[in-house]
């Protein structure tokens, strides 16, 4: 999927109501803590991200939640796609495997389902679904020049 198609997909995501955004933001730190707890407990973590990247991973989770908060509050499809492309490229260049993204995003989905209200989860999940199903497209710009580690 080309970038223009990714943007069109992002444009189709409904903008959540203000109270949904407020709930996500209010729970942001606890959501990040829970995702970190689950990911740091994985026996395959070093295989997913490299042995020296635990701090970079937890930074990514904190930044991810801030980014999603910003996206929920003010959806700009072009900025969303540009930022996700940047994140996928930068972290992959620093040793994060493609499988990390699958594991991380599935973990976010699990934590959001458990910790958000049903209404909030229904409105927030489309963004995560977009991240999940479009992973191949987000990896595509770096496929011709993959990081040597993987």
């Amino acid at each position: 999927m080309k970038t223009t198609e990714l943007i069109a997909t992002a444009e189709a995501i409904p903008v959540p109501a203000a109270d949904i955004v407020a709930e996500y933001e209010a729970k942001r730190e606890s959501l990040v803590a829970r995702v970190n707890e689950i990911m740091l407990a994985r026996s395959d973590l070093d295989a997913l991200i490299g042995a020296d990247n635990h701090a970079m991973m937890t930074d990514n989770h904190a930044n991810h939640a801030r980014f999603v908060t910003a996206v929920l509050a003010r959806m700009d499809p072009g900025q969303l796609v540009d930022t996700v492309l940047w994140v996928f490229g930068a972290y992959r260049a620093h040793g994060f495997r493609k499988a990390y993204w699958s594991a991380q995003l599935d973990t976010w989905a699990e934590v959001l389902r458990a910790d958000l209200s049903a209404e909030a989860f229904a409105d927030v999940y489309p963004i995560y679904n977009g991240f999940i199903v479009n992973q191949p497209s987000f990896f595509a710009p770096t496929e011709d020049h993959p990081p040597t580690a993987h």
Partner: protein
Amino acid sequence: MSETAPLPDLPAVAQPYLDAVLAGDRLTASRVASAFLVSGRSIIELYQEMIQPALYRVGDLWEHNLISVAVEHMATAISERIMNERYGDIIAAQRIGRRALIASVEKEMHQVGAKMVSDVFEMHGWDAVYLGANTPLDDLVEMARSQPTDLIGLSLSVCFHLPIMERMIDRIQQDLPRIPILIGGQGLKAVGARVAEERRNVFYYADLTKLDLSVDAFSRD
């Protein structure tokens, strides 16, 4: 290190500067910047055509895992010193009695852009108080109250700090409703104009040239 997609083109004039800051060669970087100005170019052109593109490239190099965080910080620190060397050219002799507070928003660790904006105001005779990175909102508001303040500038380099910037704008407008707010930075490329349009007394300029052309409008009563 990893092999990655090619980096975007860098203006030719910025390459020697970039090479110098990446090597930690402050003297050469200073000479390159001086030669650029001696050739008849302006401070704003130095910032927009040499220092800013070079620092964006430094960011790209980190993104591609071609340099470390330490090298990135070194290049940035050298660039700030180079900018300080030009203070004699930046501080306008004629002062107009206007004061601006220029800061990067809370959590925002990038600050060179805010420093460039401060320098533009100084060139127009303003007293620009440059507050640097990660400026606490309460402290900013208190400082704006402590002395006559004619403008507050907020810089955002990372887009996911936007909700923080918007909360800062809300608080400043609640407590100091008469002070115009200038917003800018890479993080606002996609949404800066819209954020400004949606709010009273908030202004956005996409680059230093556009800001330079508009500063005097803030000086008028």
